């Protein structure tokens, strides 16, 4: 099997792909990036928490103009995963306003970003519609 690594360190591939958040021990504020201290309470202790893999689209845009090399159009969105907001692309859905709407239920899906010169595959993530999605289980 091809060796795989996640695109970001808050994407965990095993046993099933899911996101983790760095949660402040003091106030439970959640971050995906590395923080020196909590922007909410100033605490410096964090632990990792799993983020649920299903959510609801709270905002989206269909990007038609992006920096050179970025394939367009694509759907960028904010997904509410059980109270944790996640930034991601919406995938496996046509990038047009007839098929994407706020309030739609989605679930985490992984996608191949690319394979490097040593044959390692990087996996990114997006969210796909729950309804009408191909069940990959």
């Amino acid at each position, binding site marked *: 099997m091809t060796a795989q690594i996640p695109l970001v360190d808050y994407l965990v591939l095993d046993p099933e792909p899911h996101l983790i958040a760095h949660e402040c021990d003091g106030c439970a*504020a959640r971050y995906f990036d590395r*923080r020196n201290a909590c922007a909410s309470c100033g605490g410096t202790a964090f632990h990792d928490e799993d983020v649920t893999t299903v959510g609801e689209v709270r905002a989206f*845009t269909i990007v038609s103009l992006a920096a050179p090399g970025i*394939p367009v159009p694509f759907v960028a969105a904010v997904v509410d995963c059980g109270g944790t*907001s996640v930034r991601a*692309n919406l995938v496996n859905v046509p990038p047009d306003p007839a098929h994407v709407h706020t309030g739609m239920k989605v679930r985490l899906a992984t996608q191949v970003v690319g394979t490097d010169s040593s044959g390692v595959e990087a996996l990114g993530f997006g969210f796909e519609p729950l309804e009408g999605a191909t069940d990959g289980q």
Partner: protein
Amino acid sequence: MASEDIWILGIHMTKFGKHPDKDTVDLATEAALGALADGGVTMRDVGVLAAGNLMGRGAGIGQLIQKQVGQTGIPVYNVANACATGATALRTAIMAIKAGECDMGLAVGVEKLAGAGLLTGGSRATEKDTWERSGRYGEVAALDGRVGTETMPGVFAQIGMEYAHRYGGIDFELFAQIAEKNHAHSTLNPLASYQKRFTLEEIMNDVMISFPNTRPMCSANCDGAAAAVVVDDSKLKTLSGSQQRRAVKVSASILTTDPWEEACQVLPNVNTLTRNAAAQAYEASGIGPEDLDLVELHDCFATAELVHYDNLMLCEPGGAADLFRSGATWRDGRIPVNVSGGLESKGHPIAATGIANVWEICHHLRGEAGDRQIEGAKVGLAHVIGLGSACGVHVLERAAA
């Protein structure tokens, strides 16, 4: 004891648009000298200079301006606060006066942006051929376009769509109608980058940048500068009657940043800091949103203007679409918004914007706005947002006759 009132004594804005024959220093100098002349004073009278030029590199813009208008040895503050840079420069000059360091200050904002495309968004040019983690997300490859979007049109599109989701009854057409209004307004503004009226159909059928923002719904990259001379009450009283009559009172000068909230790490929250700035400005000035005769707000995208109706409390919470549909924010409406044409049509030379919007308000309060004059305007509000984030709000009042 409350500190003295602060007044705008002189203010100037260059033509916004393409200035291929002028560099950043030329434009900044034109604005600075224009503001000094408008105020009837010279650089010798000025005790502090605050200046901003966001895209500039190297030497401080403030010192570069001094070399053209007068190296008088006064302190210079080179400021940067994203799109709120101009407002930050103005507020810095005001703070120096309020601190008692001097009685007159000059604030300048300038940008050369004509022809610039997207100002944000990640390049993939430097991607390596072996995965290597870097950055605060431990990413092995560029994230823009793979994990959402970093482009401004895309970020502000989502901000508008989030508002639409929360309150309902808001669609692509409504956002496009906001751009229709601002482009119509700019036809009366000779200093605007564009003075072209667009039909709603033209706006909706133009090039899509980031749904629902088409090209004419995005701020116009352009060149431009604006500058203001501010003085305290005691100084103003020593000046001529005509200087005193044309002076515009700064009833509130507020700067806020975004307090932590869930989700602000994935989508900037431009709402809370604007609401906080507005609340502080209304409190400081004793003026309420119902007292405003006109508003210049930060319509960097049509989707942004809608949410700021609500954030500036021009309507009840959730009532932004109803406010717009009532016609209230058109120039003949109850609370005209962006009669200059706004960032979408007047243009958005980033660091100049936070002074240019104050210039627009002052123009009306002085009764000098020509064809686009809002008759009898006494009170106005100027608002800017810089992502990151910073929000500047200035409330301005006409001098008592």
